[in-house]
C-alpha cells in the first residue's frame, strides 16, 4: 500500500483532488517519521509551484537581516524589548538609509486592549515609568507613563508601518529604503501620518494638540463617515476638541511638548488646575487645593523632575506653596 504514495499523489492531495481511499493511504503513510519529512518537503515544493500569490521578499529579508544583526547574541525577547542596545543601531549599512525623524505623541488614555493580540506586541508603562523601545524597523519610541504602544509583532505592513498608541510617546521615526510611511493611530480616530520629520502630538480626553517642529505630517481625524485630513507646516499647532473640530495656531514652541522625555516639565502660564491632569495622567495622583482660588494660579518655567515627589517639590517651591499627601491624594496649601 505504502509504495503507491508518491509525489504526484501528494500534490493532488494538497490540491484537494485525492479520493477518500487515497487519503486513508496517505494518513497511514504519514505514520512513519521519514514519510512525514518527505511530506513537508513536498509541501514546500508544491507551494513553490502553485503559490496563492507572490509575496514580496527583498524588503522583508532586508528587515530580517537587520534584525538579526541588531541582536547578535540572541537574547531573550524581554531583553530585546526592554534593552537600550536596540536604541542605538550601530553604523551598519541599513543605518545609512535611515534618516531620523522625531515625533512626540500624547494621546488619550482609554485602553486599547484585547483584539488581535496575536498580531500585536504591547508595550506598557506604569505610572511614573518611562521606557525606551526600539522597533524592528529602527524607529525609536520613548513611552511616557501610563501608556501603551501596540506594534505589529514585526515587519509591519508592506505599504505602511502602523502602530497604535494610547497615552504618550515620543517617536523617532526612521526612513526606510522603500520610503514606507509611518502611521500612528489612536483609538479616538486620530491618525498621524509621518513623512519623516519632527512633530508633536497631544491628544487627551479633554482635547488634542499637534505641534510640528519641521518637515511634514498629515493628520486624519473626524468620524468614520466624515474623515478629514490636514497637512501641517513647521511651527503649526492644531487643536482638536473631543467633538473633532480643529483649530490652527501658528508658531508654537514645539520642543516644550517633548520635554517629558528628558524628565523635564515645561509650563507657560499653565494653571494649577491644568496640572491636576498632568498628575492624574502620569502619576495616578489626585490633587486638591485648599482654597479654590489656588486653581487659577499660573506657573511658567522648566522643571527637572524624576518623580511626582520631585516635581511637586519644585512646583510648590517656585509658587511659595506647600503640599501634603494623604494616600494618593495631594493637598496643596498656601505657605
Amino acid at each position, binding site marked *: 500500500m505504502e509504495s503507491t504514495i508518491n509525489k504526484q499523489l501528494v500534490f493532488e492531495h494538497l490540491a484537494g483532488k485525492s479520493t477518500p481511499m487515497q487519503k486513508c493511504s496517505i494518513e497511514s503513510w504519514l505514520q512513519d517519521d521519514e514519510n512525514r519529512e518527505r511530506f*513537508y518537503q513536498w509541501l514546500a515544493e508544491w507551494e513553490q509551484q502553485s503559490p*496563492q500569490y*507572490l509575496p514580496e521578499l527583498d524588503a522583508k529579508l532586508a528587515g530580517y537581516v537587520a534584525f538579526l544583526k541588531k541582536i547578535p547574541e540572541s537574547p531573550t*525577547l524581554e531583553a530585546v524589548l526592554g534593552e537600550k542596545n536596540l536604541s542605538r543601531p550601530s553604523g551598519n549599512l541599513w543605518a545609512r538609509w535611515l534618516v531620523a525623524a522625531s515625533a512626540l505623541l500624547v494621546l488619550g488614555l482609554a485602553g486599547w486592549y484585547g483584539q488581535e493580540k496575536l498580531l500585536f506586541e504591547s508595550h506598557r508603562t506604569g505610572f511614573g515609568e518611562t521606557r525606551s523601545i526600539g522597533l524592528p524597523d529602527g524607529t525609536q519610541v520613548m513611552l511616557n507613563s501610563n501608556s501603551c504602544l501596540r506594534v505589529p*509583532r514585526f515587519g509591519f505592513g508592506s505599504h505602511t508601518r502602523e502602530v497604535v498608541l494610547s497615552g504618550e510617546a515620543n517617536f523617532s521615526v526612521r526612513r526606510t529604503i522603500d520610503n514606507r510611511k509611518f502611521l500612528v493611530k489612536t483609538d479616538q480616530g486620530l491618525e498621524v501620518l509621518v513623512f519623516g520629520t519632527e512633530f508633536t502630538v497631544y491628544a487627551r480626553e479633554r482635547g488634542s494638540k499637534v505641534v510640528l517642529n519641521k518637515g511634514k505630517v498629515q493628520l486624519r481625524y473626524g468620524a468614520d463617515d466624515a474623515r478629514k485630513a490636514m497637512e501641517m507646516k513647521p511651527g503649526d499647532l492644531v487643536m482638536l476638541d473631543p467633538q473633532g473640530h480643529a483649530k490652527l495656531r501658528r508658531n508654537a514652541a514645539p520642543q516644550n511638548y517633548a520635554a517629558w522625555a528628558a524628565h523635564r516639565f515645561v509650563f507657560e502660564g499653565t494653571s494649577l488646575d491644568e496640572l491636576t491632569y498632568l498628575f492624574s495622567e502620569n502619576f495616578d495622583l489626585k490633587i486638591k487645593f485648599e482654597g479654590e482660588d489656588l486653581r487659577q494660579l499660573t506657573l511658567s518655567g522648566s522643571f527637572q523632575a524624576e518623580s511626582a515627589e520631585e516635581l511637586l517639590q519644585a512646583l510648590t517651591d517656585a509658587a511659595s506653596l506647600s503640599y501634603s499627601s494623604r494616600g494618593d491624594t495631594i493637598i496643596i496649601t498656601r505657605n
Partner: protein
Amino acid sequence: MIQKLSSETAQNADSFEPKNKLSVGREDEKILSDHLADDSELFIRKSFEEDPQKGCELLFRLYYRGLCTHAVRFVYSKEVAEDLVSELFYNFWTKRSYQSVTASYRAYLFRSVRNRAYNYLSNDLRKYDSLTVSLSEEHSLTESPEQIMQLEELHHTLNALIASLPPQCRKVFLMNRFEGQRPRDIAAELGLSIRTVETHIFKALSTLKNGLKDQWLC
C-alpha cells in the same frame, strides 16, 4: 504580477483558485529548486553550525515565500499570512528555536506556520460568534498523521466555501481580506454603498464560520 493575480482572483468567478500561474522567476528560483531537490538540508545545517545568523537568513530566503503562500490558504489575508510567518522567523531567532530542531528545518517551519495559521483562524472566526464554536485556548498540534490530514481538509473546505459564495460577495470578501482593502475603498471601486460592502463581508464570514463548525480539531 501580484496585481494581475488579484484582479483574476477578484473578478473571475469561475476559476477561483489561480493555478500554476505564478513562478518565482529570479535567481532565487534556482537556489530554491536545487535546494528542494535535495531533501537533506545539509547545507543549511552546516550554515547553522558555522553561524546561526547566516542559517536564519538562508532559511528566510528559502522558505519565506512558500510559508506565506501556505499560510494564506488558511487565513485568507496576505497581510496576516506575512505577519504570522515573520513572527515565526523572529521567534526562531530570539528564542533560539533553531537549536531544538531535530528533524528538518523545513518540517519545523511548515508545521509551525500551519499551527499559527490555524490558531489565528479559530480566534478570528470566534470573534463573530462566541456561542457556536467553543475551543480551548491552546491548540498544540503535534505531529499526528490525523492532524496533518485535518489541516489539509481545513484549507480545502475553506477554499470550497469561498468558491461557493455568490460572485459579488466573494469578490468583496477577497478584496477586503486577501487584499486588505478597506470597506470604504471597495465601495468606491465597485460603486456599492459601504453598508452593502459590509453586509457582503459579514455574510462571507458567517458562511465560513458555519461551514467550518465541524472542522475544528479539538
